């Protein structure tokens, strides 16, 4: 395409936006509302997802070995655990290491334990990980059936509930987002249809004098693109500030738990890019849909 032609298309696209002032405003607002919801959903879902994967990685089975087990028997037990399906790693942690970890995890309070000169009451422990979080419970069950087991500890129901909630949340969010996107596309497509109606005669004449379909299409494509991108600006601004506020508010409260939010940067910039991208795509798609029937034959 020649530079002159490109400039013409941009000029025409902008002129259309201006000429249909209120329709432009209406569809930009509609896109803005939609992308706002999409943005919030995305932010929440991605954070839930993030928390989910952090938890998934952390989930492990702690097998407390019976105190009476000899070294030989412990080794045999380890081999047996390894043989269970879906077990990926089995790590030994002696009772002294366990005590160290316990003391460390308690921070300042833990220092008191260092004065504690008694026999270590903890068990030698095997830390077992599985290849997928939903295998935790069945694997744990199997381990419980082995010999020389004092106790098998894992998140049990809480963990499973959380996983279920996370995956349900993900799916609901996705469905909603897809629905919203279609709505926005429909709105953009409608706006452009109106601008096309207003320019029907012009299109007819363009076709008569030999303009190619692409030539006719470009201004409308740019118009759709601009509608989409303009619609993305407000949601991005709101999410940027909103996330900052929420992040600063929640992070101190979450300190010390295993929950963390995704860090402000680059996360919000990724969201911004996604929203602009979605806006642009639905804008152009909407315009392609609505101009198609005027360019048939």
């Amino acid at each position, binding site marked *: 395409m020649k530079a002159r032609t490109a400039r013409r298309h941009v000029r025409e696209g902008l002129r259309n936006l201006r000429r249909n002032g209120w329709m432009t405003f209406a569809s930009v607002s509609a896109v803005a509302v939609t992308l706002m919801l999409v943005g919030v959903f995305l932010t929440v879902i991605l954070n839930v997802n993030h928390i989910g994967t952090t938890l998934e990685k952390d989930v492990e089975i702690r097998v407390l070995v019976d105190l009476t087990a000899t070294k030989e028997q412990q080794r045999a037990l380890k081999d047996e655990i390894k043989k269970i399906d879906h077990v990926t790693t089995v790590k030994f942690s002696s009772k002294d290491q366990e005590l160290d970890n316990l003391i460390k995890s308690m921070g300042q309070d833990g220092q008191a334990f260092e004065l504690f000169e008694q026999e270590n009451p903890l068990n030698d422990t095997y830390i077992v990980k599985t290849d997928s979080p939903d295998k935790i419970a069945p694997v744990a069950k199997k381990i419980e059936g082995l010999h020389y087991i004092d106790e098998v500890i894992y998140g049990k129901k809480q963990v499973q509930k959380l996983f279920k909630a996370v995956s349900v949340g993900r799916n609901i969010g996705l469905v909603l987002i897809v629905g919203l996107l279609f709505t926005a596309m429909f709105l953009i497509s409608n706006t452009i249809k109106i601008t096309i109606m207003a320019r029907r005669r012009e299109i007819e004449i363009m076709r*008569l004098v030999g*303009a190619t379909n692409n030539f006719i299409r470009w201004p409308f494509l740019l118009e759709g693109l601009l509608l989409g991108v303009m619609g993305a600006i407000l949601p991005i601004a709101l999410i940027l500030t909103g996330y900052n506020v929420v992040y600063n508010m929640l992070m101190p409260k979450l300190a010390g738990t295993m929950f963390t939010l995704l860090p402000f940067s680059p996360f919000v910039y990724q969201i911004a890019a996604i929203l602009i991208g979605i806006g642009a795509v639905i804008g152009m798609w909407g315009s392609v849909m609505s101009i198609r029937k005027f360019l048939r*034959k």
Partner: protein
Amino acid sequence: MIELKEVYKTYPNGVLAVNGINVKIRQGEFVYVVGPSGAGKSTFIKMMYREEKPSKGTILINGIDLAQMKNSKVPLLRRNIGVVFQDYKLLPTLTVYENIAFALEVIEENPKTIKKRVMEVLDLVKLKHKARFLPTELSGGEQQRVSIARSIVNKPKVVIADEPTGNLDPETTWEIMDIFKEINDRGTTIVMATHNKDIVNNLKRRVIAIEGGKIVRDQARGVYGYES
């Protein structure tokens, strides 16, 4: 050169508009297409600039078969065919100059050539002095002259006119006909559908009469032949 061989056209609603037309039009000819309303004239005209596609048969324009032509090639065809309508089809927001230039802009002609060509055709239709007027500020005859200027601005070999004088009074009609004659004298083929008995009988040219989707008469220097 235009050649139609065994051309049929049935519309999706079942109407048989063109029922086996065979005709040859040589480069530089001036042809009137006459016939009662609903005889298939319009379909015949529309097929020549491929607004309609024949259901059967071939339409050759300069050796290219319009029936086989891909949709994507239609714009290229249209650049070699000028089309004039009864209702002028001018853009009301553009000036006379811009309306004519539009035809060259959309085919991405360079601005220098556009200016030169537009001034040439404005001169031909004698509207140079109204170049900056809007179509609404012109008379019907003047608007049709703008439309003709636009149709020839990219030097087509053929100009197809569908009732170009249908909305004009007799005097203006002759102004328009003089322009068509001038264009024809410069070597451009003209195919004109018309209901105007007066012009057909006075400016004698080849007459093709269509009735019931068939050519019923084809005379070298014919007459209108219907009561109007």
